[in-house]
């Protein structure tokens, strides 16, 4: 008789059902795992053997074959230990087969028979819920699984013995409770920023419409400081967004103690990041920084120092809101709707364009440095601002700075307008994500605005994408004002953010 257990394999953030079949036949005592297991899965044999032994169960001297079906799907990761062990227990008659018939099982075993946490419990739970089955997962991940829905039956044992006792009715395990890690550690606040009024305004607009942003300025002007404060003014996560980012974090194994976080992600990868680290992939497909920043902020400091390939690999996620990783044996899609915030110096020495500064290498230095960012990528950045060095007086006699809470209030108001506007569209949540035809209808400017836009489009040689991005930005500005129609002043401000500052700097 073949014992069957259902578990999952992960493709992107989808959980694909995998059937674990365990067969014990007479013959030479061998223990084989087949079905394209990777090293971690093949080694599970030793862990399963030891864990069963520690739980007081000896494997019979029979020919044991474990098949992971579908056999042509590569199996990766350590979460196959528990389903294999359960399958063996069913085959040995230690657990009744009907007890696990309607369950999806995943978990790693330690040598002493304890069930340890694995990555991807949340997507597995959602997958189990979609299949109409229950879930058996490690105790440390139970809180994570409980998020998948009230009607999902979750069993979260901390050891094989606890699971066996649960099935035999000796000690029934209760359903774990969903847990959330609330913002105990406070985010950096906008009130810390001295001066930089125009940058603050730009940051607020970027937050209000989900626009990409580029800050250019000399070292020490506060670009990183500004970017770090963007999460504090972003609107709160909707339950669906929370689930999306948690699924990715779960796959990447970044959820601690099975607790979800209600913070928007803020990812700041170092500029030495490889393409696999940025967009995901590798021999074991994992989500990259763009996906981990889904529904949040991807901050790239020292923008031109990233390798050109890495930067241009961001073009697809920025446009489509998802990343497709194609490899020889994988083709996976990760959601990556991000807000890109980049910061750079105007030239290598960092001070080009500063009053009184003259570079030894002349204007070529700045031009070469800025040319590292390709035109198509730059075209996707709506807000480009200059962050000048702070004057000493700003530090000594700082004016009153607004707190994040005050700014966030205006941002949330603008976002609420957008949410109502795009209520029927599942993929669009902010102006920046709206497609061209939608934005043309919702952001049609008044007549004076149209004229200005026409003039600017020819003078600035706007691309079709650039034209629509100006419209999106203008729409956000109107939303911040609470205006129904996009006025000339909104178009003008949007154009101003687009014009600055690269070409201007190159000429300096």
């Amino acid at each position, binding site marked *: 008789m073949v014992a069957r257990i259902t578990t999952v394999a992960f493709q992107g953030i989808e959980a694909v059902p995998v059937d674990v079949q365990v067969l014990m036949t*007479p013959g030479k*005592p061998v223990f084989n795992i087949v079905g394209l297991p990777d090293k971690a899965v093949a080694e599970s044999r030793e862990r399963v053997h030891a864990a069963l032994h520690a739980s007081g169960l000896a494997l019979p*001297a029979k020919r044991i074959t474990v098949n992971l079906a579908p056999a042509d799907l590569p199996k990766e990761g350590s979460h196959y230990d528990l389903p294999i062990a359960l399958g063996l227990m069913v085959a040995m008659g230690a657990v009744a087969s009907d007890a696990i018939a309607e369950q999806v099982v995943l978990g790693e075993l330690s040598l002493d028979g304890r069930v340890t946490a694995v990555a991807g419990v949340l997507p597995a739970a959602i997958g189990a819920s979609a299949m109409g089955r229950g879930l058996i997962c490690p105790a440390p991940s139970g809180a994570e699984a409980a998020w998948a829905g009230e009607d999902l039956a979750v069993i979260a044992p901390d050891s094989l013995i606890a699971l066996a006792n649960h099935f035999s009715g000796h000690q029934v395990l209760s359903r774990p409770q969903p847990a959330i890690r609330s913002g105990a550690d406070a985010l950096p606040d906008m009130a810390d920023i001295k001066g930089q009024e125009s940058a603050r305004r730009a940051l607020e607009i970027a937050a209000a419409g989900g626009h990409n942003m580029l800050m250019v300025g000399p070292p020490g002007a506060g670009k990183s400081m500004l970017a770090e404060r963007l999460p504090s003014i972003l609107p709160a996560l909707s339950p669906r967004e929370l689930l999306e980012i948690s699924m990715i974090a779960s796959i990447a194994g970044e959820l601690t103690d099975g607790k979800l976080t209600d913070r928007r992600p803020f990812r700041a990868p170092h500029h030495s990041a490889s393409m696999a680290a940025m967009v995901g992939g590798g021999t074991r497909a994992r989500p990259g920084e763009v996906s981990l920043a889904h529904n949040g902020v991807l901050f790239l400091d020292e923008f031109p120092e990233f390798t050109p390939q890495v930067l241009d690999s961001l073009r697809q996620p920025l446009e489509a809101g998802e990343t497709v990783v194609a490899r020889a044996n994988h083709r996976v899609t990760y959601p990556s709707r991000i807000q890109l915030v980049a910061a750079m110096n105007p030239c290598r020495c960092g001070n080009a364009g500063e009053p009184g500064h003259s570079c030894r290498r002349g204007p070529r230095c700045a031009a070469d440095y800025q040319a590292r960012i390709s035109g198509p990528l730059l075209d996707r950045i709506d807000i480009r601002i200059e962050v000048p060095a702070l004057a000493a007086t700003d530090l000594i006699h700082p004016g009153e700075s607004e707190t994040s809470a005050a700014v966030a209030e205006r941002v949330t108001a603008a976002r609420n307008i957008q949410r109502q506007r795009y209520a029927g569209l599942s993929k669009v949540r902010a102006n920046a994500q709206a497609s061209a035809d939608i934005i043309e209808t919702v952001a049609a400017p008044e007549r004076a605005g149209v004229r200005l836009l026409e003039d600017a489009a020819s003078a600035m040689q706007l691309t079709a994408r650039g034209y629509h991005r100006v419209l999106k930005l203008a729409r956000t500005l109107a939303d911040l004002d609470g205006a129904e129609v996009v006025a000339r002043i909104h178009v003008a401000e949007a154009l101003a953010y687009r014009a600055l500052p690269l070409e201007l700097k190159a000429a300096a």
Partner: protein
Amino acid sequence: MPRARSREDAYRHGHVAELLAALLLLAKGYRLLARRYKTPLGEIDLVAKRGRLVAFVEVKARPSRREALESVDNRSERRIVDAADLWLAAHPDAAGLNLRYDMILIVPWRLPEHLPDAFRPGWDKVT
């Protein structure tokens, strides 16, 4: 039982040990299928059957239990397994039965000790 010195002594000593082991198996309800089964690849001391189980038994006589336990290394395991394969080839009826590799330890002043399932050859092979 002092440790056998000469080759002749060792041979006789081994015979006595095997006899004891065979008696133990018979007492446990096994039926002996072969004794001293010699093949080009190795030798099996005893092949015994009980119900649907065939046990290939290696008999080890040593001055202490520990020495007896340590006396089967990977190479001798390999020889026993290879010889068992050849025995199976000659007895196709046994292929559908459960197979097991046992040891019987013969130690002076102790009762013979039967270790069922002493090793599993296919187990530590890493795929």
